[in-house]
């Protein structure tokens, strides 16, 4: 559910800064333990994204989200016309024999996956590098900003993590038209000379202050039926270490306002 967000003003402001045309730190990392509200924060932030920004959210948990899948989503959003170099490089690999279930090949939609599942892991890594370069060359010439928001980074496979934390973010630091926000219990290591200078890190520790939760209680139409609601809420926040997840469960169990 889209729950109202408590506090995290600094983090929300950092996201707004990311969208500014002259933003120097094009990479924003949100890091925090499970249940600290990262996904809620990311979803709340994305409400502020509007035209003319290209916006591509990518959820890295659950299914196997591969590099090919990430590229495919950008093609779906931007269209092939915006990615001529990428398309050309992809086509240059098109003559190679790849043994896959032919029933799954439906035009260019699966071509990225076909090309990146090379017969040899060395081939695949080289092709990733070539396609990544071509893709960024195209992004450099986009007519508007591209925002990519990736959630649950810790669930990504090693291949995807290596790619994101390596070639992808390195080139992001070089290309003004792209902005990247990544959230997770684990995030790419920002202490790197390749893109660390271009990165803003925001840690999420929870929301321990009761006054930040009062608006949420009100927003949800609930009431705290005790004499000193703020004190009671402060006791809850303290007992639960400011953990948004569990505090929200308590709030949702409160009686409705009459």
């Amino acid at each position, binding site marked *: 559910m889209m729950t109202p967000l408590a506090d995290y003003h600094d983090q929300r402001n950092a996201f707004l800064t990311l969208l500014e045309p002259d933003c120097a730190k094009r990479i924003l990392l949100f890091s925090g333990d499970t249940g600290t509200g990262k996904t809620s924060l990311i979803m709340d932030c994305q409400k502020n994204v509007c035209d003319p920004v290209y916006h591509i959210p990518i959820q890295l948990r659950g299914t196997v989200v591969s590099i090919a899948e990430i590229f495919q989503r950008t093609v779906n959003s931007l269209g092939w016309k915006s990615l001529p170099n990428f398309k050309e490089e992809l086509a240059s690999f098109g003559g*190679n024999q790849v043994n896959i279930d032919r029933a799954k090949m439906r035009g260019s939609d699966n071509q990225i996956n076909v090309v990146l599942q090379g017969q040899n892991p060395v081939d695949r890594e080289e092709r990733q590098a070539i396609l990544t370069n071509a893709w960024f060359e195209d992004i450099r010439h986009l007519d508007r900003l591209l925002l990519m928001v990736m959630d649950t980074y810790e669930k990504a496979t090693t291949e995807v993590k290596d790619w994101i934390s390596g070639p992808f973010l390195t080139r992001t630091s070089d290309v003004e038209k792209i902005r990247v926000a990544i959230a997770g219990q684990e995030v790419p290591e920002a202490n790197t000379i390749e893109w660390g200078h271009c990165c803003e890190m925001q840690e999420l520790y929870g929301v321990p202050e009761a006054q930040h939760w009062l608006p949420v209680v009100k927003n949800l139409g609930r009431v705290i039926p005790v004499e000193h609601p703020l004190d009671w809420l402060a006791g809850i926040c303290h007992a639960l270490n400011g953990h948004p997840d569990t505090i929200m469960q308590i709030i949702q169990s409160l009686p409705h306002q009459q």
Partner: protein
Amino acid sequence: MNNDILNRLESAQTDEAREWLVMQFTLENLAPEIRDAVWAAAIPHWFDADFLTALTDEPLSASEFQTLTTLSFAEEFPEHGFNIHERTRNLLLKRLWQDEPERYRELSRRAASYCEKQNQDDTAWKIETVYHFLIADPDVGTSLLQDIAVEWHNPPNFAYDKVEALAKQAREHADVNRLNELGIALTLYWEAHIDQIYSRCREAKAKLLEIKLSKIKDKLLKANCIRALGDVHRMLDEYEDARARYAEARPIYSQIGARLGEANCIKALGDVHIMLSEYEDARARYAEARPIYSQIGDRLGEANCIRALGDVHIMLSEYEDARARYAEARPIYSQIGDRLGEANCIKALGDVHIMLSEYEDARARYAEARPIYSQIGARLGEANCIKALGDVHRMLDEYEDAVTQYEKAMPTYKEIGDRYNYAEAFAYMGLAFKGLKQNEQTHQYLQQALKLFEEIKSPRADVVRQWLDELNQESASGNDTRPLEKRFLD
């Protein structure tokens, strides 16, 4: 109500206890149908109305489903529906397994049954099916885990990301002791294998050592685990340990008639001998493995053995024999369509020609290998050929042509991140400029090569440093204008 929950929270001793109190409090305040649905919804990694109906005794109404999905711990999961938030889910599953394991198993059975009817070409459904079968029917689950991991891992798939995702899901069960011994062993084995692929050798070793081999009845799996440990030891330069593991695995493979495993062990022993410079022993092992590969029709294994024999000959400076082996392996790679193997053989033949100072023949081989590498998109192989052509030019004192070739190879090395060859190309550029008597350029390129080799901590840095010293001495004394490399080799 409110003071009671606060008092209970304040009295609880641990964070987990507090979280469970909150969960209980939440569940108590839900209608029974929704409460049951929460337990059911926690079983899979995602759910929609249909999936949930398959799990619950009674289907939820539309409004009940909506109530469930608006709970604070239910999240939207794009393209899948919804899921219970990880933290809450783990809490619920832990309690369910602890307090009502049969109910857990029954829900898993229903989930497995639902999942296996979904599109099994979809990786997510396939993995989810295995995940539930590991609890619903551990024999089926472990069998699926092994079969699917092998299928995804092996050529032509090389789908390591899928294997990793599968192992991760199994790990979820393993971490809270929901798997049997075989399930745990398979999880560790495949996790270690993925670690190995991504050069996380210490992690791989730790996982393989965690496997309780004595509890594994499946002899093939046991042998595979021991051999994998041998592979990891080898990657960590622990050659005696590697040797011991291969020697331990080999008779198990032999006992169960797993000839491929046996051949792989023998070849691996040969590879260990090579690393320990025991070339005659290496030769003996490759010669022993080769007919086994041949008998079982594993032509790739056979070709690899023959090529390895060629490498042994190179080490023993038996260049004509090396040539013969590479020439023998080449058509086999060609016949099985292993173009990379074929190109590697042709290039190796070129390298032999270089060793024998047959530079025109070397040139011809590199020129032959290069388009094959190009056609299969093996840009590293192509760049290596171009660099080798540069070497040929340099050996023939065709320094300007050498510079041209090195300049062509360098962008590829940089693009694909091959820092060693990139550094080497700089070094050889330096040598080529030395041949052209352009000392400033020579210094520049050798300095850059030194910097790059130092960054990757390669022993080649010492060689380049020595070249630079010799250059400086030469500048000071005005003596010896022979090419640096030749002087160094002398």
